[in-house]
């Protein structure tokens, strides 16, 4: 039933974020329907890429919002005593919270893209399934680093607003800094598919970046483990 608690705690943030992300899908569909059908044009691919950029931006904000909460936030609102007196270990509490968050974050990536796919098919718009899968996988797999960062920040900083502000600041600073000095490590370009974009066709080209994906998942896992260690050592 810890799952139940984690779900109840995040469901309003989850629903609000999902509605916002779905609205972005609506914009895509609206623009796509104005195009000549069924011609498969560069403009259409470009629209797909721009949609991914918007989705990525909102996805990261949503993931940071999902990362809010947890036992450290509960300390600030006075419920940490109740949670920590339950007959469950801190590791299990934090693991369940992370797992529920990861599933919700995955839903943020998959549901908008599935919606786009479904609506496009219904409107007889030619959408390449492989391109959609590429975009969705980059968004969720790479984006987990942002979610993990938000979780880690929320285990160090108590207040909900301050931890959110710090996490968003870190996203912004790392994106700008990496783009200036270590462009190949810029997660934003990885998540949006910018690294794999053919600027002539606006299609994602080449093999799927399994190594990059593994690195992202590894970094996210390290941050999750770090958050567990912080929770284990923290005093309440």
């Amino acid at each position, binding site marked *: *039933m810890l799952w139940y608690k984690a779900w109840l*705690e995040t469901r*309003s943030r989850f629903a609000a974020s999902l509605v916002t992300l779905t609205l972005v899908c609506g914009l895509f569909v609206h623009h796509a329907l104005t195009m000549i059908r069924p011609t498969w044009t560069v403009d259409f691919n470009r629209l797909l890429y721009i949609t991914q950029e918007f989705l990525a931006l909102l996805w990261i904000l949503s993931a940071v919002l999902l990362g809010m909460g947890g036992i450290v936030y509960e300390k600030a*609102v006075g419920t*940490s005593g109740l949670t920590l*007196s339950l*007959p469950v*270990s801190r590791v299990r509490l934090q693991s369940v919270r992370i797992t529920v968050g990861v599933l919700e974050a995955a839903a943020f990536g998959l549901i908008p893209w599935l919606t786009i796919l479904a609506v496009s098919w219904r409107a007889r718009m030619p959408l390449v399934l492989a391109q959609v899968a590429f975009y969705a996988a980059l968004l969720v797999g790479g984006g987990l680093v942002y979610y993990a960062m938000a979780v880690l920040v929320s285990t160090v900083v108590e207040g909900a607003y301050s931890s959110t502000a710090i996490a968003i600041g870190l996203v912004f600073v790392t994106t700008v800094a990496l783009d200036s000095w270590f462009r190949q490590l810029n997660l934003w370009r990885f998540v949006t598919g910018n690294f794999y974009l053919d600027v002539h066709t606006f299609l994602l080209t080449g093999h799927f970046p399994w190594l990059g994906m593994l690195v992202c998942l590894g970094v996210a896992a390290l941050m999750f483990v770090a958050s567990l260690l912080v929770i284990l050592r923290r*005093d*309440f």
Partner: protein
Amino acid sequence: MNDEMAIETHELTRRYGDTLAVSHLNLRVPRRQVTAFLGRNGAGKSTTIKMLLGITSITSGGGSVLGRAIQDPAQNCQLRRDVAYVAEDKRLYSYMTVEQIIRFTRSLYQDWQPAAEARLLKQFRLPPRQKIKSLSKGMRTKLALLLAFSRRPELLILDEPSEGLDPVSIEELLQEIVGAVANGVTVFFSSHQIAEVERIADRVCILDQGALLVDACLDDIRREYRRITLSFYAPPPKVNPSLPGIKQVRISGRQMTLLATENANAVAELALDLHPASIEVTPVGLREVFLETVREN
């Protein structure tokens, strides 16, 4: 480790920087009794309880609850299955409704009593579908008590349980505590309401500045503790306050007041050697014992 003790600590200490919140505490709470934990605000009561439940870390020393070491995270997790705890501030998950938090709590404990849950829900008039964030403080306290008393734990730890309750609810709470002890539950509770403590406690521990100053049976306090008031024609003579049986000596004008913790008659006879104009021996209530103890400290 003593099986007769539900809680036992050895030199339990918690330090926050330069502040000693709990100092070398040797606490013993017997099973199947009501033990009250008294102290001023900031005396270290809540910190002690949090250390017992593994919520706050221990600086030094250790202890056991229901025979399991509190400093061992795995054992502490196990002991929490058999402990029902009501925290000081009674904060509950604001995003849940009354029935959701009951469902959630019920799922974590095997000793849940559905009949007790239904009875308390009705008795406390808690609206099952209402969000916790819209409940008053008193209703939140009742809900926290329901979550504890709907179980049949081995140990109930209540941190100021009556705070925010109306007189009728306080009466119901005291009846619940008495009923729980009759069913073999050990109750350890902190309170500022000395009248409540006097009604239901078997044992009293007084903590001040992190140190345990009194650990006694309430019956012993009632039987042994006496105030001996001596009046003199002239300023009273000096008395050694460390004499056996004398806890405190206070002089005001031509009057000397002794607080005797044992052998009050023998102390009174010794006091006659001071040649007082009059001598009066009166029983002492728990309130006075508490006030004198913490003031003296």
